C-alpha cells in the first residue's frame, strides 16, 4: 500500500483561489444571470452562499466596502417579518397594500429565517434588530404534533413536507437565538416556551432506513442530504449518538450510529461521470445483467455465472489500475446507493461524518482530488455539479465547504454542523452572554 502514501504519485490539483474569489465577487456585485429566476423565491439562501463563500475564502472584507456590507445587512433585515422570522425574499411583502386579509400570502419562512440569521452572523451583525421573542414564538408554532417541522404557516396550517431540512433549520434558529439552554426561557420579562425537542428526536429515529441511511420520512429512500439534516439537527440540540459512544441513548438519535456510519462511508465512489452507466465498470466480470433482463428473464429465475468471475482477478488490469485511477481522478461522494458522485454530496457526506466525529474514515485526499481535479471550473472559478459542468452557486459553495472539511488549508476551517466558518460560529456565545445580562436586568 506504499503507493497510496507516496505523495509523488498522488499529485493533488490546487485550488485556484483567485478565480474563486472573482467568481463570488461577481455574484455579490452584479446581477445573477436570469437562469436563477427559478430560485427567486430562494434568494436568502443564494445570499447565504455568496456571503459564506467569500468568508471561507477570507475575502469578505476585500470584496466589498464597509458601507456596502451595511446595505447587505439592511437588505436581510428588510426581509424580516413583522411578526417574527424572515421571508426568503421581499417578493411576498405587499408594502402599502398589506392588510390582515392578504397577510396569509406573506408568511415567514423557516429556511429563510435560518439563512438570514446565518448570513447576519457571518457579516458580524449584532442581532440587535432581530425580533427574537416573536421569532422563537413563531418557530414553536412551526412544529407539528408528530415532532416534524414545516416551512410556512398559512392561516393556521403548517405547510411544506415533513422534511428534516426544515427541522435542521429550526434547530439552527433555536441555537442561534436561545443558546444552549433547553426548556422555557424568559425574554424581556416574558416566558418563551421551547419546542418539542423529544418529538424531533423521535422523527429522526423513525426515518432511519433498513440499510443504515436516514430518509426524510419513514420508509423513504435514505439520502445523504437528509442524513446530514437529521444528524445536524440532533447535534444542534445536544441529542446526538455517535459511533464511539459506549452506550446509545433512547433519548438521542440516531438509534443505530454504527449503521449510519457504514452507510455514510459507502457513499464514496469513483464513479463521477453521470453519462456513463455504472454497469460499464462491472463489464469486467463478464456479466451483462441488462442484456439478460432484456431477454425477459425474471430476476429471481435467472442467475448469471458471475460467482466465478472475480472483480479483481488480473492485477495488471484491475487492482493496480483502479488504485492508479484513484490517484489521478480522486473519488467523490454520491447521495444514494448506486448513484454517481456529485460535488454537493462531498459536503453532505463529509459534514455528516464530521458531526459523527469520524471524518478521517473516508479518503479525504481522494475527495480533494475529485473536487479540485474534476468539478472545479478552471476558467470561471466555482464548482459544477459534475465534471465539466458550469459552476452554480449551490455547488460552488458546497464544494468549498467540502474542501475545507476534507482538510484543505486554502479555505478557512468550516463548522460542519452549521455549514459556515468556525470563526463566524464563535461569535455566538458572546451574543448569548449579552442577552443573558439583558434578560436578568429585565427581571430585576
Amino acid at each position: 500500500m506504499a503507493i497510496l502514501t507516496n505523495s509523488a504519485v498522488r499529485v493533488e490539483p490546487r485550488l485556484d483561489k483567485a478565480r474563486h474569489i472573482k467568481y463570488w465577487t461577481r455574484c455579490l456585485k452584479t446581477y445573477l444571470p436570469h437562469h436563477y429566476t427559478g430560485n427567486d423565491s430562494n434568494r436568502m439562501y443564494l445570499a447565504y452562499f455568496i456571503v459564506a463563500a467569500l468568508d471561507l475564502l477570507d475575502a469578505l472584507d476585500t470584496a466589498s466596502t464597509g458601507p456596502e456590507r451595511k446595505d447587505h445587512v439592511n437588505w436581510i433585515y428588510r426581509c424580516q417579518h413583522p411578526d417574527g422570522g424572515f421571508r426568503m425574499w421581499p417578493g411576498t411583502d405587499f408594502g402599502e397594500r398589506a392588510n390582515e386579509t392578504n397577510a396569509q400570502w406573506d408568511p415567514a419562512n423557516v429556511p429563510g429565517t435560518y439563512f438570514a440569521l446565518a448570513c447576519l452572523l457571518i457579516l458580524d451583525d449584532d442581532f440587535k434588530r432581530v425580533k427574537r421573542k416573536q421569532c422563537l414564538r413563531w418557530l414553536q408554532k412551526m412544529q407539528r404534533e408528530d415532532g416534524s417541522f414545516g416551512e410556512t404557516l398559512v392561516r393556521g396550517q403548517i405547510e411544506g413536507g415533513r422534511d428534516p431540512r426544515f427541522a435542521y433549520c429550526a434547530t439552527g434558529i433555536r441555537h442561534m437565538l436561545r443558546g444552549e439552554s433547553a426548556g422555557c426561557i424568559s425574554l424581556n420579562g416574558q416566558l418563551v416556551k421551547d419546542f418539542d425537542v423529544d418529538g424531533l428526536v423521535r422523527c429522526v429515529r423513525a426515518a432511519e432506513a433498513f440499510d443504515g441511511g436516514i430518509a426524510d420520512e419513514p420508509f423513504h429512500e435514505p439520502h445523504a442530504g437528509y442524513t446530514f439534516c437529521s444528524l445536524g439537527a440532533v447535534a444542534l440540540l445536544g441529542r446526538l449518538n455517535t459511533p464511539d459512544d459506549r452506550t446509545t441513548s433512547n433519548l438521542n438519535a440516531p438509534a443505530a450510529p454504527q449503521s449510519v456510519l457504514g452507510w455514510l462511508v459507502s457513499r464514496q465512489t469513483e464513479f463521477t461521470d453521470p453519462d456513463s452507466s455504472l454497469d460499464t465498470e462491472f463489464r469486467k466480470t463478464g456479466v451483462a445483467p441488462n442484456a439478460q433482463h432484456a431477454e425477459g428473464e425474471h430476476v429471481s429465475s435467472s442467475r448469471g455465472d458471475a460467482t466465478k468471475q472475480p472483480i479483481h482477478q488480473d492485477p495488471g488490469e484491475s487492482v493496480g489500475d483502479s488504485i492508479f485511477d484513484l490517484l489521478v481522478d480522486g473519488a467523490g461522494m454520491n447521495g444514494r446507493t448506486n448513484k454517481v458522485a456529485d460535488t454537493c454530496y462531498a459536503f453532505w457526506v463529509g459534514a455528516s461524518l464530521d458531526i459523527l466525529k469520524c471524518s478521517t474514515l473516508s479518503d479525504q485526499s481522494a475527495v480533494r482530488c475529485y473536487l479540485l481535479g474534476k468539478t472545479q471550473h478552471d476558467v470561471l472559478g466555482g464548482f459544477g455539479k459534475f465534471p465539466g459542468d458550469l459552476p452554480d452557486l449551490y455547488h460552488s459553495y458546497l464544494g468549498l465547504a467540502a474542501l475545507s472539511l476534507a482538510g484543505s488549508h486554502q479555505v478557512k476551517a468550516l463548522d460542519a454542523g452549521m455549514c459556515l466558518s468556525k470563526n463566524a460560529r464563535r461569535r455566538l456565545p458572546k451574543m448569548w452572554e449579552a442577552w443573558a445580562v439583558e434578560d436578568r436586568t429585565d427581571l430585576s
Partner: protein
Amino acid sequence: MGKYSVDPLWSDITPLPTDEGGPNPLAAIAYSSEYEECMSYLRAVMAANEYSDRVLDLTEDLIDMNPAHYTVWLYRARCLFHLDKDLREELEWLNETALEHQKNYQIWHHRNLVVDKLDDCTGETVFIAQMFKRDAKNYHVWSYRQWLVRRFGLWESGELEFTEEMLREDVRNNSAWNHRWFVVNGREGVPGVKDPEIREREIEFAQAAVGLTPQNQSPWNYLRAVAKKAQMPLSGLKAFAEQYASLGRPDSVCSSFALNLLADILAEEIDGKEKAGQALDLLASKYDPIRKNYWEYRKGQLGLKSSTPEAMVSA
C-alpha cells in the same frame, strides 16, 4: 409594454412591483421583463385576494418561470377549490409541468392535494411510469408513489410486481429496492419478512439479484436487512457469502460486499475475530481500498491491531 399591461382583461389592475428596500440587495437576479411584469401583477391580485379564472392563468405563467415560489402554489390551490374547478384538468396541466421541472417538489405537494381531493387515483400510475422513463430514481416520484399506496390501499394491486419490473430494467436501482422493502414491510399490522414464507421469498429474490450483479450493494443491503428484521442469525447467510468471497481463495473475491458480510459473520463466531480481520485486511488492501481507513477502524473495534499503522495518518 408587457403582455399584461396591454391586455384589456387586466386593465383594472395596478401592478405592484417588488420593493428591495434600499441599495445593494443581496442575490439580485437579472429577471426578464416578462417575469418582472408577471410577478408585479401576481403581487397585485394576491394583495387583493382575488380568486378568478384569470388568476389561474397568471399563476400558470408565473409557475412556469419560478416553480419554487412557495405561496403561489397555495394561492393557486385555494383558487381552484374556491372556483370548484375540474381537478382532472388541473392534473393534465400538472403532468406537463412536472415533466418540465423534474426536480421541483412543490409540484408533487400540489398533486397530493389535488388527488386527495379527487379521492381517485385513476391514471396516476400511468403518469408515474412516464416520469420514471426520464429518471427512474426521481426521489419526489418515489415518495409520491408511497403516498399513493398508503392513501388508496394499493398494497396488493400489483405493487410488488411493479418493483420487480423496475428491477428488471435496472437491478442497481436502489430506489426500487427501497420501494420493495416498503411494500413488503411498510403496511401497518403486517409481519412483513417476519413471516417465514415471505422471508424466504425475499431472500431468494435478493440472492438471485446478487447472482446477476455480485458487486451491487443494493441486494446485499436488502439481504442483511431481511435477516435482521426476521431475527435470523447472520450466519445463515455464510454459505451464500462464501460463494462470492472466501478467505480460502483470497485472489478471486468477486464482491466486496460479500467480503464485508463475511467479516461480520466471522466476527460473531467463537475464535472468528482473526479471520474477520483477514477479511477486513483484504478489503483495505485490495478489494475496497478507498475505504481503507474504515476497514482499519472496524478492525480496531474487534480489538485487532491495524496492519498498516500509517493508514490513519495518510488521510
